[in-house]
C-alpha cells in the first residue's frame, strides 16, 4: 500500500470543501458523459470528468496550474452541461479551477497581459477608448444613436464589434436595422466599458465584477432599462453581471420580434442555400435557437442544418478566453465546423456572434473553395434594404 508521500494524488479535505462550497461539483458521480460529449475531449486534450475531481487534490502531479491539460483550452461551450445527468454546472467548475490558477499566479503565457489590457484600457485589444466609436463612420440619423426622445434602450456594441473592422459591419447593420424599425436607442460611445466576458471566462471574477459595476453605474446614470447586445458573449456577461433592473437581450431576439410584428419590413431576397451556426453563448447557454433562424428565413434563406446543431452545435472554439490564444492545429474546432458547413452544400454560413465570425472566417480562409460567412444581422440588413 502506498504511503501519502509516495502517492501521486493526495486528497485534500480543505480543497474539496472549497470546491463544494463554490460549485456544485459534489453532485458529480463521475459517469463520464461530459468527456464523451466534449468536442475537445475527442481531440484528446481535455478530460472534463477528471477536471471535476482534480479540484480536490493537493499540489503535485495533479497541480491545477498552467500545464493542466485542457483546463485553459476549454471553450466553455457548455456541451458538457447539456449532457450532464446530474445538472452540474461544469462550466462553473472550470471557471473555479482557473481562479485557483490565478491565485497561484500559475496561468498560461499570454493571459496576464490580456487582463492588464482589460484593467487599464477597458478592452482586450489595448486600443484606446477614444477609438471606440470609429465603427459609426458612415452612419447617419437615428442609426448613430442620437435621438430626441430619452431612449431607455442602449445598443451595447462590445469591444470586438467596436474595434474589429469585420465585426464593425455587424454593429452598423444592427444600428441601421433598429433605426429602420423606428426603435430609439442610445450608444455609450467612449464610455462603453468591456462587459468582462473574458476575465469571467478566465476565472478572474474580481475584474469581471469591477467591470460590471462600471457598466451598471453608467446605465443607471442614463436611465437605461434595456440593453441590446451585438455579441452573445456580452449578452451572457451582462446578464450575469447586471442587476435584474436592466433587461438584457441579444439583437436577434429583438429583431425577430420586430419582424414578426411587421415593424421591421424585410423583403425575402435570395441569399441562396444557407446553413446557420448556433453560437454557444446564444444557443446552448441561453436556449436562443429559433429567433436567428426565423430572421434568416424571413430574409428568404433556404436553411439547411448541419448534423450538429442547436443543443448539439459544434463550438467554433472562440469562447472560454480562447480568442486570445493560439490553439494548436488539431484542436482548431472551427476547422471542423467549416468542413461541416461545406458538406451541407451551403454557399453561405451565417452565425450571430463576432467571435464565431472571426474563428470561422479564419478557418475558411485557410481552406479550399469559397464559403461566405456572414452575421445574421448582415443578411437581414440586405433583405431590409439597409446598407451594411
Amino acid at each position: 500500500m502506498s504511503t501519502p508521500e509516495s502517492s501521486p494524488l493526495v486528497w485534500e479535505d480543505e480543497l474539496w470543501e472549497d470546491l463544494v462550497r463554490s460549485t456544485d461539483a459534489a453532485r458529480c458521480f463521475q459517469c463520464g458523459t461530459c468527456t464523451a460529449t466534449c468536442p475537445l475531449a475527442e481531440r484528446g486534450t481535455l478530460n472534463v470528468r477528471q477536471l471535476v475531481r482534480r479540484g480536490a487534490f493537493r499540489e503535485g502531479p495533479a497541480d491545477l496550474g498552467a500545464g493542466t491539460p485542457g483546463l485553459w483550452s476549454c471553450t466553455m461551450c457548455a456541451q458538457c452541461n447539456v449532457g450532464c445527468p446530474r445538472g452540474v454546472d461544469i462550466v462553473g467548475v472550470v471557471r473555479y479551477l482557473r481562479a485557483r490558477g490565478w491565485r497561484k499566479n500559475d496561468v498560461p503565457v499570454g493571459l496576464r497581459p490580456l487582463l492588464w489590457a482589460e484593467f487599464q484600457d477597458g478592452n482586450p485589444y489595448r486600443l484606446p477608448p477614444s477609438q471606440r466609436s470609429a465603427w459609426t463612420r458612415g452612419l447617419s440619423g437615428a442609426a448613430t444613436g442620437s435621438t430626441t426622445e430619452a431612449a431607455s434602450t442602449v445598443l451595447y456594441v462590445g469591444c470586438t464589434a467596436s474595434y474589429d473592422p469585420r465585426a464593425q459591419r455587424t454593429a452598423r447593420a444592427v444600428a441601421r436595422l433598429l433605426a429602420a424599425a423606428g426603435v430609439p436607442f442610445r450608444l455609450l460611445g467612449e464610455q462603453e466599458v468591456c462587459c468582462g466576458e473574458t476575465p469571467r471566462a478566465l476565472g478572474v471574477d474580481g475584474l469581471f465584477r469591477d467591470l460590471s459595476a462600471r457598466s451598471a453605474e453608467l446605465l443607471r446614470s442614463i436611465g437605461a432599462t434595456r440593453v441590446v447586445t451585438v455579441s452573445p458573449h456580452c449578452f451572457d456577461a451582462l446578464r450575469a453581471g447586471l442587476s435584474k433592473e436592466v433587461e438584457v437581450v441579444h439583437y436577434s431576439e429583438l429583431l425577430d420580434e420586430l419582424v414578426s410584428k411587421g415593424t421591421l419590413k424585410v423583403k425575402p431576397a435570395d441569399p441562396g442555400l444557407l446553413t446557420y451556426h448556433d453560437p454557444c453563448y446564444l444557443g446552448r447557454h441561453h436556449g436562443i435557437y429559433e429567433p436567428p433562424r426565423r430572421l434568416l428565413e424571413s430574409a428568404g434563406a433556404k436553411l439547411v442544418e448541419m448534423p450538429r446543431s442547436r443543443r448539439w452545435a459544434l463550438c467554433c472554439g472562440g469562447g472560454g478566453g480562447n480568442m486570445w490564444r493560439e490553439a494548436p492545429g488539431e484542436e482548431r474546432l472551427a476547422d471542423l465546423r467549416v468542413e461541416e458547413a461545406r458538406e451541407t452544400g451551403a454557399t453561405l454560413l451565417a452565425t450571430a456572434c463576432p467571435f464565431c465570425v472571426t474563428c470561422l472566417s479564419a478557418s475558411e480562409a485557410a481552406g479550399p473553395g469559397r464559403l461566405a460567412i456572414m452575421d445574421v444581422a448582415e443578411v437581414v440588413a440586405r433583405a431590409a434594404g439597409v446598407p451594411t
Partner: protein
Amino acid sequence: MSGRGGVWVYAERRGDAFRPVSLEILGRAREVAEGLGEPLVALTAGQDEGVGDELAQYGADQVVVIAHPLLSRYDTRVFTGLLERELRAHSPSVLLLGATRDGQDLAGRLAVRLRTGLTAHVTSLEVASDHRLVGWVPGFGGGIEAGITCPDRQPSIVTVRPGVFPMPTPGPGGGAVRVVRPSLDEAEFGSRRIAFEPNGDAVDLTRSDVLVVGGRGTGGDFARLQRLALLIGGEVGATRVAADAGWVEHERMIGQTGVVTRPKVVIVLGASGAVQFTVGIDKAGYVIAVNRDPEAPIFEAADLGIVGDLAPIVDQLVKDLGAV
C-alpha cells in the same frame, strides 16, 4: 550658456570600431560647434591608443583618447570616474553621447556626478538665436516634442539615438590627439563580468525597421516575399493564417497572439487586416498594403493601399530593385 569649453562628443568603442551613432553625432556636432563658436572635441575610452586619428577625420578639432588594457569592456564606475576627471578639468559646455545602452548607463550617472542637466533621446539639435543649444525630444508616443535647454549648468549632457543624424563622410582630419593613460586595476571596477553572449540568428521581428508580411493571399509562396525582403533590408512576417498553414515559422507571426512590431515601414501582402493582426503593425511608421479586395479592412490600417495582385507586383519590385 556657452563657456568656451567646447562641444565634446563621447565616441563609444565597440570591439575594433566606433559605434556608428558616435560618428553620426560627430557629423552634426561639427555644425553645432561652429554655430556656438566653440571647438569640437571627441573623447573616447578603450584599450587602443591609436584610434584618435580616425575621430579627427570626422571633424574633431581635438581628440582625447583614454587608453588602458582594462578598458576593453564598459564598466559604470570606471568610465564615470574617467570621464568626470576629463570634464572637470576642461569644462566643456556640451557633452553629446549616443543613446546606446551603455551610453545611457554612463550619461545618467555622469550627469548626477556633475550635478548637471541631461537631455535624453533628442531627435534634433538646434542652435538658438541666443547661442543656446536646444535639444528636441519626443514624448507621449511621438505626438509631441519638447525643446530642452540647460542654461545654468555645464556641461549640458545630451544623448542622441542612432539613426537620427546621417553618417558623415570622413575628411582629411588633422586635429590634435591627446592620449591619456590612467592607472587602473581590477579593484576599481564596480562590476565583474561573468558572461557575454552574442546575439544568435534567431528571428526577432521587433528589431526590424522594414517588414514584408504575407497573409492568405500569398498562397504560401513566401520565397517571393523573402526575395523582396532581402533587397530592402527587411524581415519576413506573417499573419496567423499563414503561420498556421505552416508557410513560415511561428516566430514570424505578427498580431495579438504573436509579435507586436514597430518598423519604419511594413508592406502587407494578401492579408485581409483583421484587428487581431493589425494590432501587431499599428505602431509602424508607414504601412503599404496590397490586396485584391478593395473592401479589405487592411486598407483602413494602411497609408498606401494598392488594389491588385500581389504576385506580379512583388515580382516587379524584385526586378526593379534587384537590377540597380
